């Protein structure tokens, strides 16, 4: 089975330049003592820039070396900034850049559309445009300028995604409260903060009944569900014993966890196994987080290949081919 990577990133240099110009004062670009180019968010390191983020040739060479056949690329970086016009124009440029990557490498590259979610009407427009250009799904950050994905203002975007049966990669960014959380040291945004962001967003979707409102929605919880597989039992007992957790849903959270999709961006065999157990063999898809500094196409694929045969094939590519309707014949 072909290997399909559903969590792997590219960013257009022009888009990033605009992000840094427009994203002040939250986002800044600095160079560390070790000579690394780093984007910071509210004073805490947010992402380290690496050359393959901008270069499809480099990416394809690394994919060849790792044995990865197809990459479903998405942006990782500051995405929601600027006035409506500036934001929409920049995101068009970013999606067009990925569409060009897909056109140039039709057997190797697919892409997820970025959208100017903070301007919902523009986001719906851009969704249509990006799909016309070949987007196979959508990426959304787990909070939009501190607002929840379940907020009513975003409903028109979700409705359109739902109508189109599109998969959505829910990918973390820095959670609200970076300063209060003291993330400026030890890259704690990456180690812990991103996991907080995804977990909180998806737990909220579950308790809010959000997933019941959009029956066709296919949510991919990034980084092997962040921490959700480990907390599945806790979510259920909260549902069982706390009325506030049953205000909007009547099914235990663990059942919703079976309705989600997951990538394999975790760095321990036991976590991958737990994710498969909680989410289901048909719901976990290979993902690498390449080319971030903790991305690891080879190591993560080795963990997938160490799974029992039936799980291995599903996770390597069968599940992703089905979800994204990718023809891998």
């Amino acid at each position, binding site marked *: 089975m072909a290997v399909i990577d559903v969590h792997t990133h590219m960013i257009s240099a022009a888009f990033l330049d605009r992000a840094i110009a427009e994203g002040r004062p939250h986002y800044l670009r600095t160079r560390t003592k070790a000579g690394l180019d780093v984007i910071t968010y509210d004073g805490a390191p947010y992402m380290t820039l690496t050359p393959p983020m901008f270069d499809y040739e480099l990416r394809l060479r690394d994919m060849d070396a790792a044995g990865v056949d197809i990459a479903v690329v998405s942006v990782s970086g500051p995405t929601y900034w600027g006035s409506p016009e500036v934001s929409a124009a920049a995101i068009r440029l970013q999606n067009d850049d990925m569409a060009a990557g897909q056109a140039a490498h039709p057997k190797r590259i697919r892409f997820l559309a970025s959208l100017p979610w903070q301007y919902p009407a523009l986001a719906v427009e851009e969704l249509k445009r990006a799909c016309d250009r070949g987007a196979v799904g959508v990426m959304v950050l787990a909070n939009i300028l501190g607002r929840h994905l379940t907020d009513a203002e975003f409903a028109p975007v979700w409705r359109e995604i739902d109508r189109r049966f599109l998969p959505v990669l829910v990918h973390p960014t820095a959670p609200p409260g970076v300063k209060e959380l003291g993330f400026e040291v030890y890259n704690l945004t990456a180690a812990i903060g991103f996991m907080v962001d995804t977990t909180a967003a998806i737990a909220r979707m579950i308790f809010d009944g959000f997933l019941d409102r959009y029956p066709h929605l296919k949510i991919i919880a990034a980084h092997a569900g962040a*921490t959700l597989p480990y907390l599945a039992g806790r979510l*259920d007992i909260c549902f069982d014993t706390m009325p506030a957790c049953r205000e909007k849903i009547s099914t235990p959270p663990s059942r919703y966890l079976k309705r989600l999709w997951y990538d394999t961006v975790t760095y321990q065999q036991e976590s991958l196994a737990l994710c498969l157990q909680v989410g289901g063999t048909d719901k976990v898809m290979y993902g690498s987080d390449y080319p971030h500094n*903790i991305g690891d196409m080879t190591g993560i694929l080795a963990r997938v290949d160490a799974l029992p045969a039936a799980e291995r094939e599903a996770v390597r590519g069968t599940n992703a081919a089905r979800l994204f309707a990718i023809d891998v014949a």
Partner: protein
Amino acid sequence: MTTPSIDVHTHMLNKQWFELLRQHGKPRYEVKRSLDYPAPEGIHLDGAPFMTPQEGHFDYEERIKRMNEAKVDLAIVSLTCPNVYWGGEAISLEAAKIVNDDMARAQKQYPDRIRWIASLPWEYPNAAINELKRSVAQGAVGVMVLASINGASLTEERFAPVWKAIDDLALPVLVHPTAPPGTPHMDMRQFNLIASIGFMFDTSLCFARMFFDGFFDRYPNMKLIASHAGGTLPYLAGRLEICFQNMVACRTKTQRPPSEYLRHIYYDSVTFTPEALAMAIKVGGAEHVLYGSDYPHNIGDMKGCLARVDALPDAQRKAVRGENAKRIFKI
């Protein structure tokens, strides 16, 4: 003979403490009507439901009855959040004394069934150290600390004298979560998200910071118990490790990888699936996991948590049921 079961994560409150909190907890902590039927009142943090006292929190007789039903032999009781970190120095110390004295009394009344761990006014290190000594003299077998103290990290310099005093006494410390810093920004008012998710992050962030900060290298005798089966740490163990390997910022203060610290700390068994418990044991080691129940919180579950421990392979079962707790608390 079955190994006696020792519950290391189980709570008691006290009415006087509760009334003091009602008076002095504002503006952050407010006691008001709770949605969590049948408990009439809940403690709210910045308006968000935060901790709901149950009747069992105040009643030792009831506790012993429940322990008998669940076949729990010994409880090492502790206060819970928001602990005594409110009201200024005099009130914080008064609250600690009320709770510690009450627990010391309970231990005298039920010497075969109750041990306790001390709460301290951490924000006032001198008072905290004095109360630590007083508590130990009264029989405290360990210390409780919340994973963040009104937003401050436990690694902050101002807490160092308290840690030093605890390290000198080689006492185990239950690191118990409260609402994590940033809670108002993350907006966890709805769906009791502080309890389901927030607490888990408070603990995880606290320990991740300690690992990267080299905290354990400074306190050689320190035995910290990460509540709720480590929050989310066991699941994130690989992620912490690759951050350490690939990010310079994670190696500025320590040369030891997170995986070493993860085998150095202790975990309770307050998790609600056998798979999560197995993962905590795998990451921490069977000698480092201790039975805990979170009784009598609304999600506390003496029987269920013990049943999962009893379902473990024999050697692990004995260690987790009580042998590990006996060893580290010197019972």
